[in-house]
């Protein structure tokens, strides 16, 4: 029998939101722990910022990346307890054995399962890349641009051979720019942003021009365009190859074109990492501008599940600067709920953080609209693989709708799509959109996969060695079998 650790607040994720929230909570004298799946703090955005081998050549990754060092250092130097390499696979409420009304968190570190109890849970689980289902996207040599950037940040690895970047959004230009700084040759940049959107965006342009994104973005795009063959608009993109990627074909200006390539990096924006929130029971809302599911939370980060809070990109994509202020804002609310702040104290802090947040998100509406992924790259057809784990194609999903399957959960039962180890991260939005497409209804009406714990795979051996308490040994319920 072992003693289970108990905290006031457990934060999942050590990106800007999680770190900022943890630091704030600690200053309020709250017993807080951060569970971080990564080895070093910083999340995806500041991945490896204190350990990166590129610290001697800071110009490669750019000032915005290194600016994260301040927050990461402050976090590491604070006395916040951080559990590194911790994968959270369950958060339970009703089966929790805690004496107080607390959540029970199941997590693993180095293939060893653990349990902890926490009164409040803050989900700062960030974002992941939107799936980019084109024919051939599962070929070796094709990867997401974000994964490639992670390799660059944490290990200074760059692709060798002929490199093509494809997709849309600010991150793709940033990666292109970082590769140029590192001396990596880019054969082509296929910009899939649909043409002709700018005129409709004029109402949002003024905010954008006053935003921190404007000048930086402009400079980035200019530099990339000066050194790389940027082709746009793009349609009918295919990754070709037998054993691995050999070429990328596409249509541009109604001409069929082909580029030989060893690596294709795909990216069309990021979407909230919702699996943990959804499995806990947080209501999801379809964001039709960003074309993704967002766990619903109020402006202070409260969700429909009492004492489950959300901050950062997991609560809706708004970027790193906004995530930091959202983390602080939610920390203030939690401190208030724990009785460490008065209502007045909370409200005055909230006002201050809101101003920072408003500044950090100014202008986003402009490029959210500009870079909304093209329909053809969100709603594939034919033999394009949708569910990578179970190798289910767009056509299979579409045909299953035609024979009467109305939602993603039934789709799981029909085709097993979304039932592999990724738990739908690679296919959930695509499956929802395909069903919506075939049925001619909205994504909200179609709904999302019902997700279950474990939200991250664990081995049976890990689960078997879960520390047993006396209560758990007694609580095991067995149905009697006839003799």
């Amino acid at each position, binding site marked *: 029998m072992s003693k289970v650790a108990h905290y006031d607040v457990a934060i999942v994720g050590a990106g800007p939101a999680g770190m900022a929230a943890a630091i704030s909570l600690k200053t309020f004298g709250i017993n807080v722990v951060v569970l971080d799946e990564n080895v070093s703090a910083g999340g995806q955005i500041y991945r490896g910022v204190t350990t990166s081998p590129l610290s001697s050549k800071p110009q490669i990754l750019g000032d915005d990346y290194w600016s994260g060092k301040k927050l990461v250092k402050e976090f590491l130097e604070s006395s916040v307890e951080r559990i590194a390499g911790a994968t959270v696979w369950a958060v339970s409420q009703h089966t929790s054995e805690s004496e107080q009304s607390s959540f029970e968190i199941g997590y693993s570190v180095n293939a060893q399962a653990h*349990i902890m109890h926490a009164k409040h849970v803050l989900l700062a689980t960030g974002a992941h890349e939107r799936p980019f289902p084109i024919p051939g996207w599962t070929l070796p040599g094709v990867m997401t641009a974000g994964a490639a950037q992670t390799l660059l940040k944490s290990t200074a690895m760059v692709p060798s051979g002929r490199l093509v970047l494809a997709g849309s959004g600010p991150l793709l230009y940033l990666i292109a720019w970082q590769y140029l700084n590192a001396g990596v040759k880019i054969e082509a940049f296929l910009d899939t942003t649909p043409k002709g959107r700018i005129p409709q965006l004029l109402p949002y342009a003024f905010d954008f021009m006053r935003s921190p994104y404007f000048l930086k973005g402009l400079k980035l795009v200019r530099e990339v365009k000066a050194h790389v063959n940027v082709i746009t608009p793009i349609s009918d993109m295919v990754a070709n190859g037998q054993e691995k990627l050999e070429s990328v074909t596409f249509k541009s200006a109604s001409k069929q074109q082909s580029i030989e390539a060893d690596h294709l990096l795909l990216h069309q924006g990021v979407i909230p990492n919702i699996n943990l929130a959804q499995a806990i029971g947080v209501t999801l809302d379809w964001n039709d501008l960003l074309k993704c599911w967002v766990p619903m939370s109020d402006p202070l980060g409260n969700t429909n599940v009492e004492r489950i809070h959300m901050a950062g990109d997991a609560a809706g994509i708004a970027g790193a600067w906004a995530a930091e202020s959202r983390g602080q804002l939610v920390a203030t609310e939690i401190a208030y709920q724990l009785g460490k702040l008065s209502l007045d104290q909370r409200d005055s802090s909230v006002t201050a953080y809101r101003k920072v947040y408003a500044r950090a998100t100014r202008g986003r509406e402009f490029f959210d609209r500009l870079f909304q992924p093209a329909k053809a790259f969100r709603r594939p057809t034919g033999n394009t693989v949708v569910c990578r784990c179970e190798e289910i194609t767009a056509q299979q999903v579409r045909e299953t709708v035609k024979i009467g399957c109305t939602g993603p959960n039934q789709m799981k039962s029909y085709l097993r799509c979304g039932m592999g180890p990724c738990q739908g991260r690679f296919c959930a939005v695509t499956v929802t959109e395909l069903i919506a497409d075939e049925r001619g209804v909205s994504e909200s009406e179609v709904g999302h996969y019902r997700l279950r*714990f474990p939200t991250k795979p664990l081995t049976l051996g890990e689960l078997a060695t879960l520390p047993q308490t006396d209560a758990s040994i007694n609580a095991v319920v067995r149905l009697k079998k006839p003799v």
Partner: protein
Amino acid sequence: MGNVTNADVIVIGGGLHGSSTAMNLAKAGTQVLLLEKNYVGRHASGVNAGGVRTLSRHMAEVPLSLASQQIWSNIQDYVDDDCGFEICGQMRVAENESDEKILKDRMALMQSNGYTHEEWVEAADVHKMIPSIVPTIQGGLIARHDGAADPYRTTLAFRRKAQQYGADIREGVTVNQVTKRNHSWSIDTDAGQFQSRVLVNCAGAWADKIAAQFGESVPLTAVGPMMLVTTRMPHFLNTVVLGTSRALSFKQRANGTVLIGGGHLAWVDRNRDITELDFHALADSAQTVCEVFPHMRHAVISRGWAGIEASMPDGIPVIGPSGVEDNLFHAFGFSLHGFQLGPVVGEIMKDLILSGKTDLPIKPFHISRFS
């Protein structure tokens, strides 16, 4: 008051038993309408372990189970779908001497009742059949003609066949209240009023709420037996393996994934249709599996889930006419043993409704046993 939809028979509940009942009635030419509050196969029927098992049945259930097995052996012709059914045998294994005694006593009891479908398998044969099982297993009790099927596919096949025969199936319709007016049933739902001569209660974990409206209160518990499934593994097992004194149900499916069940229960809120897995209980389940199949220690769990089912305190279901009302029938309370019975229960309900009798011994399942 809005439009009233009429049918000769209304079935409440679109699980396997409701779908099978609707299918059998429609096949016999009866005008039947089925009301399902979510979608067909949403709970127990769609997400159970898919065990098609005559093994270890309660003695009262054995005749029904054997009759149902006849239908299963012909399932393709019966519903125009093979339902993923495969005969692979089911076996309860003896982990120690006390298990061995339990199983041998069971076999003796079965034989004294004239049943021969449960046979003893010597330890050496168990290990020949299942080389990866722990060497200390002392033997097993097998039903060789048992097997497993795909539960959701099966429920849908019955639903589809019911529709082909003309049954009207309405999903997303929640029944609020049932009253009897002038010898007919008036069913008030969130999608309007329905009316029928005969009413069938196949509402599973919610069936007691329907029965209670006629003063037939039953001690039903809504339970959620938990299941785990692993990622694909190299083929190592044909037979479904069950525990004897420990909760275990273990099967490798054709696609290589391994399904682990056994009856550990989730936390359930049937009013909100939600369950929460209990990882302490699952840890116990994982321990059992790792002890019986040592190589499973490295198996990766990709999902866990629980469907909401109805459990009765005496471990057998309610099947048959109401004890208080004419033209009212019940079939519910099948937790952990209902899937295999689905086909025969549909036939029994059809016989009871159309001719007032059945050839199968259903007396032990009458609802009045709780009054």
